[in-house]
């Protein structure tokens, strides 16, 4: 059983949802980011999304755009991202890590070779923002061959006609993008999320994680009552940005993760 499957099964037994945390690999620099990454599980992250920095993050708001710029300026790369995962795996072999980003760096690496190298580093799945089902076949079979999950994104514009095609590629979990927009901006209402999650559930038995616009422990708790996971990204990334150059660059994002985890754990399902 994969780490992702195991994790969701264990959480189901615990009767709670997952806190999924996002940081950008190499932000603000590779060593500091490794310190944050390695401490995320202890702070309460159940799954980790590690952003692959890209020069042109078209679906991201200012916080994550700037995180990618900081990371690239500090020498981050796709190779460095895999090295960070491999280093993390030396001390943690159970917390799932999903890489999230844009297709071009993987295209450059070579989809087949990247799948092999990512699996070897200890990656569990990929979320590729600009690879819709219409183009996904150039990557998905290579992921399947090495046991990596292809985490699909569904959005408020993905209607019932389109959902089956989008979900046809899905494994691991389904990532519901709760707003039409970029990361770190608007938030959806709980009622809108509830309706969307129940609609997706009619088409899949995979766990559903909800992201975009979730910033506070209360919001995370609200989502945790409706879905199998709440994804928080921009707020954590902003906590890094706000403390760069101080010792709090490591502790501030982790403190926020602890608060978010407390919110999610209090929201029993």
């Amino acid at each position, binding site marked *: 059983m994969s780490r992702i499957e195991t994790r969701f099964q264990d959480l189901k037994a615990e009767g709670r949802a997952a806190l999924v945390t996002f940081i950008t690999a190499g932000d603000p620099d590779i060593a500091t980011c490794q310190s944050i990454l390695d401490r995320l599980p202890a702070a309460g992250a159940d799954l980790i999304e590690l952003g692959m920095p890209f020069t042109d993050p078209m679906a991201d708001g200012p916080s994550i755009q700037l995180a990618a*710029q900081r990371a690239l300026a500090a020498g981050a790369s796709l190779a460095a991202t895999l090295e960070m995962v491999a280093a993390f795996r030396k001390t943690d072999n159970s917390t799932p890590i999903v890489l999230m980003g844009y297709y*071009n760096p993987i295209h450059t690496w070579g989809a087949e070779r990247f799948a092999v190298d990512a699996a070897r580093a200890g990656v569990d799945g990929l979320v590729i923002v600009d690879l819709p089902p219409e*183009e996904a076949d150039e990557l998905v079979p290579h992921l399947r061959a090495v046991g990596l999950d292809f985490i699909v994104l569904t959005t408020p514009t993905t209607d019932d006609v389109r959902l089956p095609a989008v979900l046809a590629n899905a494994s691991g979990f389904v990532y519901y993008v709760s707003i039409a927009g970029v990361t770190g901006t608007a938030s959806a209402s709980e009622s809108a999320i509830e309706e969307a999650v129940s609609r997706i559930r009619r088409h899949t038995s995979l766990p559903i994680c909800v992201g975009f616009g979730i910033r506070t422990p209360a919001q995370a708790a609200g989502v945790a009552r409706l879905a199998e996971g709440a994804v928080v990204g921009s707020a954590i990334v902003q906590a890094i940005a706000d403390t760069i150059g101080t010792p709090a660059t490591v502790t501030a994002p982790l403190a926020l993760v602890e608060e978010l985890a407390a919110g999610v754990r209090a929201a029993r399902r």
Partner: protein
Amino acid sequence: MLYWHPFTAQAHGKLMQSLNTYRAGPDERGHFGIFGGRYVAETLMPLILDVERSYAAAKADPAFEAEFRQLLAQYVGRPNPLYHARRLTEAFGGAKIFLKREDLNHTGAHKINNCIGQILLARRMGKKRIIAETGAGQHGVATATVCALFGMDCVIYMGATDIERQQPNVYRMKLLGAEVRPVQSGAATLKDAMNDALRDWVTNVHDTYYLIGTVAGPHPYPAMVRDFQSVIGDEVRAQILAQEGRLPDSLVACIGGGSNAMGLFHPFLDETGVRIIGVEAAGHGLDKAHAASLSGGRPGVLHGNRTYLLQDNDGQIAEAHSISAGLDYPGIGPEHAWLHETGRVEYVSVTDTEAVEAFQRCTRLEGIIPALESSHAIAYAGKIAASLPADHLMVISLSGRGDKDVATIARALGDIHLGGLV
């Protein structure tokens, strides 16, 4: 479910050639060989598919075509002349030079052809709000113009660097009622403006139409913009037959994204006797900062399509450089990438300095101030014309007028010749 596969797509590319046509693309998935496609966020996919369906329906509707043609004739001022440039011909000392006068269109460039087509489509789709990216500002001005004409809200994304070097066009857009949003990210040029336009679109997907200005982006944009711009080549064919009694021997056009070039080239792709040349911006030189994606890049995925991109070994997109804001983009339309690989079109490049020289030459000899973009095509024509016979008919796309560039030229000449006089 059918999925694209690189090998079948390559086979399809061969098929198109074996049927003796270069004009059949893209396939139903939006691919030209391995290029093109629809690499966009899921939020946009349903809308992209809707644009595709709506465009297919519009294309099949004679009323749509009739309104497009009428606006091109009465509003844009088409057909514009195919002008025999006697003094450039004499100065170059070889081939007989013709200029396709897109600079004489309303708003001063070829960009308006595409904007007329897409605004009609946006209206047909019931959209009320238009967004666009712009580099030199020509596409922004053309978009703001058609939005004024059709009473639609208009937001233009423009890099802060480009706003600085294209002030007259920024003010024109504002006069026309558009909101110009400066983009600060990256090098603050066309690529970054396109990123922010995509971010706006994903946020306002319910009421907004993205009026892309070149033959790039996700399918169906590359094919749709090509179709609207093909009026350039269609007119050239009719005009040169009327004026010279035969087809041209060569076509030369500048390429950023490549829409004026594709509009000129496409109607001639299957005329194997016509030599076709696309001119990219070599900036400071191909070994330095430049914007020549085919000469200095390799295939990748950006802004919705697979094409040649300037990028590093990690797949990070490189900053392009050209003195011409309209060519300052690290990619190129996917159909050009395909025509490059098939060898049907020759792609070459011209430096900033060569373009500035050609700008001056055309201005002084013909009394026509060309856009810096178009000056790249004139410069390359000047390099090869002397080696060609006097009966060689060469058509250069004069894609736009150069009034917008006078401040840039003054700065460049100040550096090169005038010792700071301007």
